[in-house]
């Protein structure tokens, strides 16, 4: 698949696959399907991103049919792994209800667990997230939990059985990039399950910097959907994710606030 830069990189032995809950993905980019101006652009952007996993939301069917909103009219579940989310839920009980409905659709056991605690910042309610993560993991769900950049919560979510922990880079839809790279690195250092940074990436450099922290992947939606040209931005993000990942694996040179010549200082002419 030539569209998938990560797969190309992997073929050259530069990076391995990302494994989440027993499933291997060649792309380290997960994308959302919300907020696109039209579905054709969305599908072109999703394909350009090289992703294999896309998030979808669970909502009531619009019985007035003001528009055709079912995402599966556009998105082929045989082409992309569907990750249903519990976006919009403000309690563990609601998130569990949405997750169960999503699983009943019959695609897979995965859920992107999201329990919001505050309407203004959309920051997660970590207590409710943890409670829902335990219940859903016990019910056989493969929970990928959206959380803040707090190490202790991340550790507890791993203990609760989550197959991936997904700390935010910065608030959902903010495009502020990674506000706390140290905590993201610390979470990655301490957890065994994959760490996917979810929310806050605004542009390609943000995605690259995020991957340079050593995390396993990035989930984004608004950065693509709200770009002036979502398809072009998706290409950029695909490259940025690969670039950041390979830079991390390569190991960067030490940074120092002093110049060091790159050419020999000996052998100069008199």
């Amino acid at each position, binding site marked *: 698949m030539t569209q998938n830069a990560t797969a190309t990189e992997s073929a050259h032995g530069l990076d391995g696959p990302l494994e989440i809950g027993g499933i291997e993905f060649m792309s380290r980019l997960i994308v959302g399907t919300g907020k*696109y101006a039209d579905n054709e652009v*969305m599908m072109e952007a999703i394909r350009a991103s090289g992703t294999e996993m896309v998030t979808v939301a*669970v*909502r009531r*069917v619009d019985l007035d049919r003001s528009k055709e909103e*079912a995402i599966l009219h556009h998105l082929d579940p045989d082409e992309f792994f569907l990750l249903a989310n519990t976006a919009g839920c403000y309690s563990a009980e609601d998130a569990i209800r949405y997750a169960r*409905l999503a699983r009943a659709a019959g695609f897979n056991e995965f859920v992107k667990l999201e329990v919001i605690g505050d309407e203004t910042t959309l920051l997660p309610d970590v207590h409710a997230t943890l409670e829902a993560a335990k219940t859903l993991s016990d019910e056989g769900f493969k929970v990928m939990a959206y959380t803040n950049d707090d190490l202790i919560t991340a550790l507890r979510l791993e203990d609760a059985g989550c197959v991936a922990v997904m700390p935010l880079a910065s608030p959902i839809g903010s495009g502020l990039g990674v506000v706390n790279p140290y905590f993201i690195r610390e979470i990655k250092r301490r957890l065994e399950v994959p760490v996917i940074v979810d929310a806050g990436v605004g542009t390609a450099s943000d995605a690259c910097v995020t991957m340079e922290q050593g995390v396993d992947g990035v989930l984004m939606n608004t950065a693509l959907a709200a770009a002036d040209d979502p398809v072009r931005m998706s290409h950029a993000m695909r490259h940025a994710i690969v670039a950041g990942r390979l830079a991390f694996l390569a190991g960067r040179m030490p940074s120092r606030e002093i110049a060091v010549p790159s050419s020999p200082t000996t052998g100069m002419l008199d």
Partner: protein
Amino acid sequence: MSADTIHVRLNGKPREIQPGHTVHSLLESLDLRAGMVVVELNLEILGRDSYAECQVQEGDTIELVHFVGGG
């Protein structure tokens, strides 16, 4: 309550429907494909194989959900 309709709550709104509907026939009357929606009846998720037998009753609360775009 008139005898020729029953009252249900469908996706949050009161609705009068013909008596004798199964979940299957209700979905058909709404022009919905069973494979595209998930049905919650009185807070219980219904398996797709029970749509044909499950009768819609007076006072039922029915939620019909599906996947939409989201992040």
